[in-house]
């Protein structure tokens, strides 16, 4: 029995895309199972037995069940160490830096960026009005975070070193969404951040995620 990734229908949420990026980087066979979230399938059994918090994504790999996108990407990176792209490293000091920037994505980048994604991308898809006060507040916060990234990426090609890692991968979905929004200039006006974005978004695995996403649009 292969891997199943449970997620949303179109538009695929960033958290789900994060997992898809990982399965593609590792060149794994999988089935994508879009849930009928409009009818609340994610808040009922049987899905709740996969994710008791009633959120997407979830993943099944044989008899192993996981939820929380960053736990899933971490599991995939560890379990399939010998397949596809190396997302981790055995060098303990280098791995420590991967861990730092994995946390940075989760606790500094995502909370701010996801609010902007919601206001500027998601709401647009559903024809809703963005809250410009929220947009302005989070644009300012994102600018500060990206200043730190710019300094970091001046020294290194990727966030945790010279190789693409789990830390960069976890950023892909929201970087993708925001680079297709009115805040893309925050990324473009920082040359090292801009180069990094272009690089990671052009990875074959990410292009596969976007292709799958477009297919679901129907």
């Amino acid at each position, binding site marked *: 029995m292969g891997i199943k990734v449970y997620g949303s229908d179109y538009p695929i949420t960033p958290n789900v895309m994060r997992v898809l990026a990982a399965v593609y980087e590792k060149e794994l066979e999988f089935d994508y199972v879009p849930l009928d979230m409009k009818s609340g399938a994610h808040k009922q059994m049987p899905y709740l037995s996969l994710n008791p918090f009633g959120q997407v994504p979830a993943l099944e790999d044989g008899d192993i069940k996981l939820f929380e996108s960053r736990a899933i990407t971490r599991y995939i990176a*560890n379990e399939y160490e010998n397949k596809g792209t190396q997302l981790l490293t055995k060098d303990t000091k280098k791995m420590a830096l991967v861990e730092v920037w994995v946390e940075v994505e989760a606790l500094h980048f995502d909370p701010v960026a996801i609010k902007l994604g919601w206001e500027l991308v998601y709401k647009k898809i559903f024809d809703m009005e963005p809250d410009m006060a929220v947009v302005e507040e989070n644009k300012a916060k994102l600018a500060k975070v990206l200043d730190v990234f710019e300094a970091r990426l001046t020294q290194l090609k990727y966030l945790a070193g010279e190789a693409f890692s789990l830390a960069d991968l976890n950023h892909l979905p929201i970087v993708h969404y925001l680079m297709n929004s009115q805040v893309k200039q925050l990324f473009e006006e920082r040359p090292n951040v801009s180069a990094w974005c272009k690089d990671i978004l052009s990875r074959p695995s990410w292009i596969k995620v976007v292709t799958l996403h477009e297919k679901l649009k129907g």
Partner: protein
Amino acid sequence: MGVKVYGIPHSTATLRVLAAVHEKELEYELVPVDLRSGAHKQEPFISINPFEQIPAFEDGDLTLFESRAITKYIAYTNEGKGTSLISKQGKEMADLAVWMEVEAHQFDPVSTKLAWELVYKVFFGMEIDNAIVEENEAKLAKVLDVYEVRLAMSKYLAGDSFTLADLHHLPGLQYLNGTKVKHLFDERPHVSAWCKDILARPAWEKVMALQKQARND
């Protein structure tokens, strides 16, 4: 040469790291950071943590920040010492990954808001926002319902052994245990047993003793 932890023993994130160094029985130095004078927003601290927050960590020429990255480094580089805090294969590793994320994304945001209102504000004589307390008490109840089901299946969150998934909760649990939302934990028998168990760990008691001493200094 031991490791250095930069921070203060009242900050939950610093406490998270101190719990790990004590579980691993490491030699370390706690280097205080004078938040009031803005030391965390200046050099030399910002070279260690450009996000201007405590804690930070130094092991020789390696500097780290983000408490949950630091605890992982401590756990993985000291596998032969003290308590094993991790699992490396298969299902146990998967469960550890899941419940570390649950602590960070489901428990901590709610716990932090409640601790701010019911511990920090009280300590500094500031007015509590009851709407925030009520909203987050309700959210915490829902989170703990999930924990109750989980802890009926295994002694600790990621299985039958104490791991980082449990350890990361310690500072939040300690603070909330001294507030009116304690009843949410007490009312759920498996959650209650788990809380009592992990808060009574000798390593955590050492951290609490350190905190108490810092208060008296």
